[in-house]
């Protein structure tokens, strides 16, 4: 954490699933680590998440998905960001994603997915190393 950079992160919960323990823990951990954090709350559509990302001028979106709908929701969110000219927002995820699905997600532009057992420090370190403030804001 040497840099002086300020990063804004949207922690989002997409789809119908209500399991928000992980998302809330991550949101708090990121806040405690010095990021500016916005939490969307539950049951968001891809459009709602992209809209919030743009409105809040975030540098990254961390998406929590445990429902098995990741192959539908990740591409939809990336698509919705692109439609809004926000394709430079870094999108990463956390949740239950089988190994086999990872290449497909990488291909559509998901930066990384943290699977069960990842420590909050790992996620914090990854963000410092991989997310930059968006230019032109």
């Amino acid at each position, binding site marked *: 954490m040497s840099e002086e950079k300020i990063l804004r992160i949207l922690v989002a919960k997409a789809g119908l699933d209500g399991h928000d*323990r992980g998302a809330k823990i991550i949101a708090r951990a990121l806040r405690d680590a010095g990021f500016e954090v916005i939490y969307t709350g539950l049951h968001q559509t891809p459009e709602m998440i992209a809209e919030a990302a743009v409105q809040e001028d975030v540098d990254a979106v961390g998406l929590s998905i445990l429902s098995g709908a990741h192959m539908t929701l990740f591409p939809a969110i990336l698509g919705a960001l692109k439609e809004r000219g926000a394709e430079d927002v870094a999108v990463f995820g956390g949740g239950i994603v089988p190994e086999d699905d990872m290449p497909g997600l990488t291909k559509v532009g998901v930066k990384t997915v943290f699977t*069960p*057992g990842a420590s909050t420090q790992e996620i914090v370190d990854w963000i410092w190393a991989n997310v930059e403030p968006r230019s032109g804001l």
Partner: protein
Amino acid sequence: MNKQAWLNEKYPQQEERSERFSTISDMEIEPVYTPDDLNGSNLEGVGYPGEYPYTRGVYPSMYRGRYWTMRQFAGFGTPEDTNQRFKLLLSEGQTGLSTAFDMPVLMGYDADHPRSLGEVGREGVSVSTIKDMERLFQDIPLDKVSTSMTVNCTASILLAMYIAVADKQGIPRSQISGTIQNDMLKEYIAQKEWICPPEPAVRIVTDMIEFCAKEVPRWHAVSISGYHIREAGSTAVQELAFTLADGIGYVQAGMERGLDVDEFAPRLSFFFDIHNDFFEEIAKLRAARRMWATIMKERFNAKNPRSMLLRTHCQTAGVSLTAQQPVNNVVRVAIQALAGVLGGTQSLHTNSMDETLALPTEESVTVALRTQQIIAEESGVTNFVDPLGGSWAIEALTDRMEKEAFAYIDRIDELGGIIRAINIGFPQKEIADAAYRYQQQLDAREKVIVGVNSHAVEEERPMEILKIDPEVERSQIAQVTQVKQGRDKATAEEQLGRVHAAARNGQNLMPVLIDAVKAHCTVGEISDVYREVFGVYQDPAWL
């Protein structure tokens, strides 16, 4: 020598391996327990199994009479897929069915709704119409099995469908038995699948309690659930407290409806999580029984002893399973299942080793069921009734959890009851704090998960996992489209209108819902009526 002298003089002679000993919920544990630790409750207060306050079990003979019901939760894909899994489980010796519905059902959307995209049949079975329900229970005699259905904000619709299927099979409503989860209060607290705000949601639950008490006497209209509260990250005491507080909320709602407490309370059932901390979990179930008996007798003046019995289903803790070295989960499940049995559960679901990765395969479900059968038939523990009763440690832990949980219930009473407490986010925030604290302890390695922050290994062999064919979504969309096109439109609309009227004028919803589903009104359409009449609840997104 008394305890204090022993603690001062003898115990420090050897070093301890840790600075602090605590349960997974962070309750500190003393080096030794003695009769001095049983503050208020002496052994007389503990009593006998099957006797008030039921600390030692709800029945005198417990598993010497019959084993608990082995009830594995199942549901995925199309109704045919799940029907096949049901039949496998019944042929393997399972004694009751338990249905998992997919996310669209749990949130009140049909398979063809845009919000259902990617979620149809993924985490449970897809059901939009009575046709789906008929296919789900095809060739299963509804008067011979007891069926549990895990569904909440749309529970009224799914129960209406189940009753309608029984009606069509010619089975009297008095003959069907089972449980519908239908615990809306814990949805706002923990699981978070909802349609409308808490007040109308509790009104619908009360309609169902009233209807079942009169029409479907062998049905449990609500299963008051701590499971999701715990899985959301609560401590064991919070699980105990908030679950019983929810129970108090339903009893109050039933009595305000004008029902006699003894008319409906005997059919209230419970559902607890069984986590890793062995003695804490056993004590939790013992405390839960004693607390509920006390609450029913003293707070609600119940006269029928059956109103005072806390009968419970238990499930091993999904949250405790690890994606790392998943075969280790078999051992965790076995330990948790044993705690559930020593705690005196009436029914049990054991999780499968692969559940952190995907829905379980047939092989891993079978191992999970065999785990219960080994405990029941091989281990010998079922020859005893409450074998840990009278253990100073267990009794002290039971007393302490009871005391701490009652303190939470007092706090909720001061806030004006559970709905008011939920509306200001009290239980939600308490749980989020506990969940965060536990994660910090894990990150600091003050708490250990083997294979994750201790004994981790680099290379792991991927497991064979169950995949849901994308074809499921297409075929379920086709099914619901076909039903919508093929039904008598005027009748369906008229029935939806009657649901609308009943929702508005406060008449019991169940009879009109049964008519509506028979007229092929769908889960999504009826949920839309609820949305329109009662409004949509938004996540306050408290951190």
